[in-house]
Protein backbone atom coordinates (compact mmCIF):
# COMPACT_ATOMS: atom_id res chain seq x y z
CA UNK A 1 0.00 0.00 0.00
CA UNK A 2 1.40 3.46 -0.89
CA UNK A 3 1.39 6.50 1.41
CA UNK A 4 -1.89 6.57 3.30
CA UNK A 5 -3.02 9.59 5.30
CA UNK A 6 -5.21 9.02 8.34
CA UNK A 7 -6.09 5.34 7.82
CA UNK A 8 -7.99 5.42 11.13
CA UNK A 9 -10.28 8.15 9.68
CA UNK A 10 -9.95 10.34 12.78
CA UNK A 11 -10.19 13.40 10.57
CA UNK A 12 -13.61 12.57 9.21
CA UNK A 13 -14.85 11.61 12.67
CA UNK A 14 -13.83 15.06 13.92
CA UNK A 15 -15.53 16.74 10.95
CA UNK A 16 -18.70 14.73 11.54
CA UNK A 17 -18.85 16.22 15.00
CA UNK A 18 -18.88 19.81 13.70
CA UNK A 19 -22.25 19.84 11.96
CA UNK A 20 -24.74 17.85 9.91
CA UNK A 21 -23.15 17.97 6.46
CA UNK A 22 -26.10 16.59 4.48
CA UNK A 23 -27.11 19.00 1.72
CA UNK A 24 -24.73 21.73 2.89
CA UNK A 25 -22.99 23.79 0.22
CA UNK A 26 -19.30 23.49 0.98
CA UNK A 27 -16.27 25.20 -0.51
CA UNK A 28 -13.08 23.24 0.10
CA UNK A 29 -10.03 25.43 -0.38
CA UNK A 30 -6.80 23.56 -1.11
CA UNK A 31 -8.34 20.23 -1.98
CA UNK A 32 -5.13 18.71 -3.36
CA UNK A 33 -5.83 15.30 -4.88
CA UNK A 34 -9.34 15.25 -3.42
CA UNK A 35 -8.72 12.94 -0.46
CA UNK A 36 -10.80 15.02 1.96
CA UNK A 37 -13.31 16.02 -0.74
CA UNK A 38 -14.35 12.39 -1.17
CA UNK A 39 -14.76 11.99 2.56
CA UNK A 40 -16.93 15.12 2.78
CA UNK A 41 -19.03 13.86 -0.14
CA UNK A 42 -19.62 10.66 1.83
CA UNK A 43 -21.10 12.84 4.59
CA UNK A 44 -23.64 14.22 2.11
CA UNK A 45 -22.19 17.65 1.39
CA UNK A 46 -22.38 19.34 -2.01
CA UNK A 47 -18.83 20.45 -2.66
CA UNK A 48 -17.00 22.96 -4.76
CA UNK A 49 -13.30 22.14 -4.35
CA UNK A 50 -10.39 24.22 -5.54
CA UNK A 51 -6.62 24.11 -5.57
CA UNK A 52 -3.96 26.23 -7.29
CA UNK A 53 -2.24 23.14 -8.70
CA UNK A 54 -3.86 22.12 -12.02
CA UNK A 55 -2.14 18.73 -11.90
CA UNK A 56 -3.68 17.91 -8.54
CA UNK A 57 -7.11 19.03 -9.73
CA UNK A 58 -6.79 16.69 -12.69
CA UNK A 59 -5.81 13.86 -10.33
CA UNK A 60 -8.75 14.70 -8.04
CA UNK A 61 -11.16 14.53 -10.98
CA UNK A 62 -9.82 11.13 -12.00
CA UNK A 63 -10.04 9.82 -8.43
CA UNK A 64 -13.65 10.90 -7.94
CA UNK A 65 -16.04 7.93 -7.81
CA UNK A 66 -18.91 8.20 -10.28
CA UNK A 67 -21.45 8.16 -7.44
CA UNK A 68 -20.18 11.58 -6.30
CA UNK A 69 -20.12 13.16 -9.77
CA UNK A 70 -23.24 15.26 -9.15
CA UNK A 71 -22.14 16.33 -5.69
CA UNK A 72 -18.57 17.48 -6.38
CA UNK A 73 -17.06 19.97 -8.79
CA UNK A 74 -13.38 20.90 -9.03
CA UNK A 75 -11.76 24.11 -10.12
CA UNK A 76 -8.21 25.50 -10.32
CA UNK A 77 -8.02 28.63 -8.20
CA UNK A 78 -6.27 30.69 -5.57
CA UNK A 79 -7.46 30.97 -1.97
CA UNK A 80 -6.87 34.72 -2.03
CA UNK A 81 -9.06 35.29 -5.11
CA UNK A 82 -11.99 32.93 -5.07
CA UNK A 83 -14.00 32.97 -8.27
CA UNK A 84 -17.20 32.37 -6.33
CA UNK A 85 -20.27 34.47 -5.64
CA UNK A 86 -20.65 36.23 -2.31
CA UNK A 87 -22.61 34.45 0.41
CA UNK A 88 -22.84 31.25 -1.63
CA UNK A 89 -21.63 28.64 0.88
CA UNK A 90 -22.73 27.26 4.23
CA UNK A 91 -19.25 26.05 5.07
CA UNK A 92 -15.72 26.84 3.90
CA UNK A 93 -13.05 24.25 4.68
CA UNK A 94 -9.39 25.26 4.66
CA UNK A 95 -7.71 21.91 4.35
CA UNK A 96 -4.06 22.27 5.39
CA UNK A 97 -4.02 25.62 3.57
CA UNK A 98 -3.35 28.33 6.13
Amino acid at each position, binding site marked *: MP*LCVDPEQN*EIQALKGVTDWRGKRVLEVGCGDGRLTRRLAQLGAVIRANDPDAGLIEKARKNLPQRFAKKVSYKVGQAE*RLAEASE*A*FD*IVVFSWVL
Partner: protein
Amino acid sequence: MVHALYEAHRVLKPNGLLIDLRPASIHRRVGISRPDGYQLSWVMRETFEDDRAADRAVAQVMAERRFKAAGRTRFTCNRTMDTLDEFREWLTDFVIKGEFRSHDWLVRRVELALDAANGKTGIVVSGPLVLRVLRKQCTSLDQTPNWVK
Protein backbone atom coordinates in the same frame (compact mmCIF):
# COMPACT_ATOMS: atom_id res chain seq x y z
CA MET B 1 -3.04 34.34 4.56
CA VAL B 2 -5.36 36.94 5.95
CA HIS B 3 -6.61 37.69 2.43
CA ALA B 4 -7.70 34.07 2.07
CA LEU B 5 -9.68 34.45 5.29
CA TYR B 6 -11.28 37.65 3.97
CA GLU B 7 -12.31 35.74 0.84
CA ALA B 8 -13.77 32.94 2.95
CA HIS B 9 -15.75 35.56 4.86
CA ARG B 10 -17.07 37.01 1.60
CA VAL B 11 -18.30 33.72 0.13
CA LEU B 12 -19.87 32.42 3.35
CA LYS B 13 -23.54 32.89 4.05
CA PRO B 14 -24.39 34.83 7.21
CA ASN B 15 -23.51 32.68 10.23
CA GLY B 16 -21.67 30.24 7.96
CA LEU B 17 -18.81 28.14 9.28
CA LEU B 18 -15.14 28.34 8.45
CA ILE B 19 -13.23 25.16 9.25
CA ASP B 20 -9.47 25.52 9.56
CA LEU B 21 -7.86 22.10 9.53
CA ARG B 22 -4.08 21.80 9.73
CA PRO B 23 -1.26 20.08 11.57
CA ALA B 24 -0.64 21.27 15.11
CA SER B 25 2.63 23.11 15.41
CA ILE B 26 4.17 20.54 17.74
CA HIS B 27 6.26 17.42 17.39
CA ARG B 28 5.75 14.58 14.94
CA ARG B 29 6.67 11.03 15.84
CA VAL B 30 8.41 8.79 13.34
CA GLY B 31 8.25 5.09 14.04
CA ILE B 32 8.03 1.58 12.74
CA SER B 33 4.89 -0.51 12.88
CA ARG B 34 5.96 -4.12 13.55
CA PRO B 35 3.96 -7.28 14.09
CA ASP B 36 4.91 -7.09 17.76
CA GLY B 37 3.96 -3.42 18.16
CA TYR B 38 5.08 0.14 17.47
CA GLN B 39 8.71 1.17 17.75
CA LEU B 40 9.49 4.88 18.02
CA SER B 41 12.48 5.96 15.94
CA TRP B 42 12.56 9.71 16.44
CA VAL B 43 10.57 12.70 17.64
CA MET B 44 10.73 15.62 15.19
CA ARG B 45 10.47 18.90 17.07
CA GLU B 46 10.79 21.30 14.14
CA THR B 47 8.13 23.98 13.79
CA PHE B 48 7.09 26.02 10.77
CA GLU B 49 6.98 29.80 10.55
CA ASP B 50 3.92 29.34 8.30
CA ASP B 51 2.01 27.84 11.23
CA ARG B 52 2.71 30.85 13.40
CA ALA B 53 1.73 33.20 10.56
CA ALA B 54 -1.54 31.28 10.13
CA ASP B 55 -2.29 31.62 13.84
CA ARG B 56 -1.68 35.37 13.59
CA ALA B 57 -4.00 35.65 10.55
CA VAL B 58 -6.79 33.81 12.38
CA ALA B 59 -6.29 36.02 15.44
CA GLN B 60 -6.51 39.10 13.23
CA VAL B 61 -9.84 38.23 11.59
CA MET B 62 -11.27 37.41 15.01
CA ALA B 63 -10.02 40.71 16.42
CA GLU B 64 -11.70 42.42 13.46
CA ARG B 65 -14.92 40.61 14.42
CA ARG B 66 -15.27 38.98 11.05
CA PHE B 67 -15.34 35.58 12.74
CA LYS B 68 -15.82 34.26 16.23
CA ALA B 69 -14.55 30.98 17.66
CA ALA B 70 -17.16 28.22 17.60
CA GLY B 71 -15.12 25.15 18.48
CA ARG B 72 -11.75 23.47 18.51
CA THR B 73 -10.54 19.90 18.70
CA ARG B 74 -7.29 18.05 18.27
CA PHE B 75 -6.77 14.47 17.13
CA THR B 76 -4.05 12.13 15.93
CA CYS B 77 -3.36 11.82 12.23
CA ASN B 78 -1.09 9.00 11.04
CA ARG B 79 0.62 8.76 7.70
CA THR B 80 1.58 5.20 6.89
CA MET B 81 4.21 4.31 4.32
CA ASP B 82 5.38 0.93 3.12
CA THR B 83 8.76 1.86 1.71
CA LEU B 84 11.77 3.97 2.57
CA ASP B 85 11.35 5.83 -0.74
CA GLU B 86 7.88 6.99 0.31
CA PHE B 87 9.26 8.17 3.63
CA ARG B 88 12.14 9.96 1.89
CA GLU B 89 9.67 11.72 -0.41
CA TRP B 90 7.52 12.85 2.53
CA LEU B 91 10.59 14.00 4.45
CA THR B 92 11.92 15.95 1.46
CA ASP B 93 8.64 17.90 1.25
CA PHE B 94 8.84 18.55 5.00
CA VAL B 95 12.42 19.83 4.78
CA ILE B 96 11.69 22.06 1.79
CA LYS B 97 8.55 23.52 3.39
CA GLY B 98 10.37 24.38 6.58
CA GLU B 99 13.68 25.32 4.91
CA PHE B 100 15.37 22.95 7.35
CA ARG B 101 18.76 21.30 7.01
CA SER B 102 18.95 17.93 5.32
CA HIS B 103 17.35 15.09 7.29
CA ASP B 104 19.26 12.30 5.52
CA TRP B 105 20.34 11.08 8.93
CA LEU B 106 16.70 10.36 9.78
CA VAL B 107 16.25 8.34 6.59
CA ARG B 108 19.27 6.25 7.61
CA ARG B 109 17.88 5.81 11.11
CA VAL B 110 14.55 4.56 9.78
CA GLU B 111 16.36 2.36 7.27
CA LEU B 112 18.26 0.67 10.12
CA ALA B 113 15.02 0.12 12.04
CA LEU B 114 13.42 -1.42 8.94
CA ASP B 115 16.40 -3.71 8.41
CA ALA B 116 16.28 -4.82 12.04
CA ALA B 117 12.60 -5.69 11.63
CA ASN B 118 13.40 -7.88 8.63
CA GLY B 119 10.90 -6.25 6.32
CA LYS B 120 7.71 -7.10 8.19
CA THR B 121 6.98 -3.47 8.91
CA GLY B 122 5.53 -0.16 7.83
CA ILE B 123 6.67 3.37 8.56
CA VAL B 124 4.30 5.56 10.57
CA VAL B 125 4.59 9.34 10.93
CA SER B 126 2.20 10.50 13.58
CA GLY B 127 1.28 14.08 14.44
CA PRO B 128 -1.83 15.78 15.77
CA LEU B 129 -4.15 17.83 13.60
CA VAL B 130 -6.07 20.81 14.93
CA LEU B 131 -9.58 21.51 13.70
CA ARG B 132 -10.82 25.03 14.45
CA VAL B 133 -14.37 26.12 13.75
CA LEU B 134 -15.06 29.83 13.25
CA ARG B 135 -18.48 31.33 12.71
CA LYS B 136 -18.93 34.24 10.31
CA GLN B 137 -19.91 37.49 11.94
CA CYS B 138 -21.58 40.25 9.98
CA THR B 139 -20.09 43.59 10.96
CA SER B 140 -19.79 47.08 9.61
CA LEU B 141 -16.29 46.07 8.48
CA ASP B 142 -17.96 44.30 5.56
CA GLN B 143 -18.55 47.64 3.90
CA THR B 144 -16.20 50.49 3.30
CA PRO B 145 -17.25 53.48 5.39
CA ASN B 146 -18.64 56.43 3.43
CA TRP B 147 -15.86 58.72 4.61
CA VAL B 148 -13.11 56.57 3.02
CA LYS B 149 -12.27 57.98 -0.39
